[in-house]
């Protein structure tokens, strides 16, 4: 057995043949620090840090694609044009597609792996409480989504203010940016929660990825179809020209998380045209739907991890 050969080096000024077992006398961190460590570890693994090159492909590519509009904006602003991308919606379609890919690829990385290899009993036999695990994972994934959404916004902002003249112009940009950042936070929280709960349904990464992609894509397409059908062919309503949207069109956005996010944005005062007509009086319904979706996702996570891993 190799265990007997002391290989951990000699002590001060003398040869130690076999240091044997050494007790740990240092500090032990509490539960909060352990949860933070788990969150940090998960955040790193969301971007493939500490893993092989293969694990970095999706996060890097999606991040770069997400940043392209901000870069293009910086170039066009440098040539004298005004900022062309709104902070509150960014490029909506691009954001939807990139986030679906990012979440479908990486939420399973955070939770399905542990389910698949049955690592959970090892976490739960440590000084963590039952819900600390999903909480740390959720916090990590919200931060990951936040980075995906907000960093391009910051690039957009920086690219614009480099050409801004005077404090008032910069202040104007900053005031436009802040609601954009808050809406990005709303996106990150809701999408991360939905993504994680869907991923936690299966230990098989392929199934989890499929479930997430299908859920987000189908509801997104469905919302589009409902909008079209209720608005009527040939009368596309896009918030301009004083045309009033039909009730059906106003409600069509409730079926997809992305359109719920956008309906809430418009209800809260977002001015840029979005993928759905302004919800009008139904605005609060979008806000309620957002909270409902979030609550459902969080409850799902709690239920999923209340029992997992002990048996």
């Amino acid at each position, binding site marked *: 057995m190799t265990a007997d050969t002391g290989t951990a080096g000699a002590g001060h000024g003398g040869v130690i043949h076999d240091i044997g077992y050494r007790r740990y006398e240092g500090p032990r961190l509490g539960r909060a620090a352990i949860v933070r460590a788990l969150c940090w570890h998960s955040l790193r693994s969301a971007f493939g840090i500490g893993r092989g090159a293969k694990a970095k492909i999706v996060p890097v590519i999606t991040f770069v694609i997400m940043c392209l509009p901000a870069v293009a904006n910086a170039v066009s602003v440098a040539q004298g044009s005004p900022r062309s991308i709104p902070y509150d919606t960014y490029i909506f379609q691009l954001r939807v597609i990139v986030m679906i890919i990012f979440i479908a690829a990486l939420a399973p990385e955070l939770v399905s792996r542990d389910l698949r290899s049955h690592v959970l009993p090892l976490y739960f036999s440590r000084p963590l409480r039952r819900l600390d695990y999903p909480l740390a994972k959720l916090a990590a994934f919200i931060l990951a989504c936040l980075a995906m959404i907000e960093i391009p916004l910051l690039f957009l902002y920086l690219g614009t203010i480099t050409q801004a003249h005077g404090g008032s112009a910069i202040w104007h940009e900053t005031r436009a940016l802040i609601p954009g950042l808050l809406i990005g936070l709303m996106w990150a929280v809701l999408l991360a929660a939905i993504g994680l709960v869907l991923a936690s349904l299966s230990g098989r990464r392929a199934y989890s990825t499929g479930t997430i992609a299908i859920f987000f894509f189908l509801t997104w397409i469905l919302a589009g179809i409902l909008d079209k059908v209720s608005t009527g062919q040939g009368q596309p309503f896009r918030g301009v020209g004083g045309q009033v949207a039909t009730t059906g069109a106003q409600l069509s956005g409730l079926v997809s998380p992305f359109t719920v996010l956008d309906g809430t944005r418009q209800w809260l005062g977002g001015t840029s045209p979005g993928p759905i007509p302004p919800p009008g009086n139904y605005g609060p319904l979008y806000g309620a739907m957002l909270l409902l979706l979030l609550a459902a996702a969080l409850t799902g996570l709690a239920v999923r991890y209340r029992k997992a891993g*002990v048996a």
Partner: protein
Amino acid sequence: MTARLPLRAGPAPGAPDSTAVIETAALTKRYPAGVTALDGLTVTVGPGITGLVGSNGAGKSTFIKILLGLLPITSGRAAVLGHDSARDGEQIRMLTGYMPEHDCLPPDVTATEFVTHLGRMSGLPPTAAKERAAESLRHVGLYEERYRQIGTYSTGMKQRVKLAQALVGDPRLMLLDEPTIGLDPAGRSSMLDLISRIGAEFGISIVVSSHLLGEIEQICDHLVAIDGGRLLRSDSMTSFTEVSQVLVIEVDEGMGKLLAELAARGLRPQQDERALLVQIETDATYDAVRDAIADLGLPLNRLEQRRRHVEELFHDNENEEEARRDR
């Protein structure tokens, strides 16, 4: 292969003093489906290595999960290292290393990364976690291979990683659930050596569960046997294997002649497969046996006082139980 360690007389140096490591009183666990996993279990486990034996489904795993504070108790009480398992599960888990029965390792990370991460999860600061992960892997004999992905390991090496992750937080107590399961005989015996080393030299108390008594009896100081969620017997290993007043004589040939000779000398020899058993009455019995063999000029192979085998005691106990139930 190192020699088996002799049974230890007292607690190992550095072990928590004579206070009980585990103490339960009328511990009962009923699952919602109506299955009673533990039924009024009262047992005290001291420092050292304790074997937890029982057939599959006897309640061993449930017992361990209750000790870790992972399962709610239906009634009764359980304390580990002086902490109540229903109330202070976190403290218990801070001081306890757990090795689950089933496979629990991700294939695509290295042993070092994995054990380091779980060291962090045990509350070690980053640098300490790294150091202790390397040390734990060295203790379980995986120092050379520690940068390989776990998926490339053999079953025996995986079991060692599971042991290392239980050791990484420098626990006062280790709960090992069927650590030898799935191992070949060589792997089994080196795993048992390792456990016995951890218990004896590292001063960590160990509870090791197994459904095969013969396997763990050699490394235990104490045995707890449960069946159907109830305590069958809890005793020190020495009392289990007391020498009996029976002499075992084994000769290479001439067993029949010896049998007749011993009977002629006034002993009552019994044949037991390839050995003769003689009841020891006085010291003269030894002389009579010696003289008989010498006079016949037989090649003596074995002459010893028989040790009672632990399995027999459990069977005796079970038989008694059955007899009592029948009455």
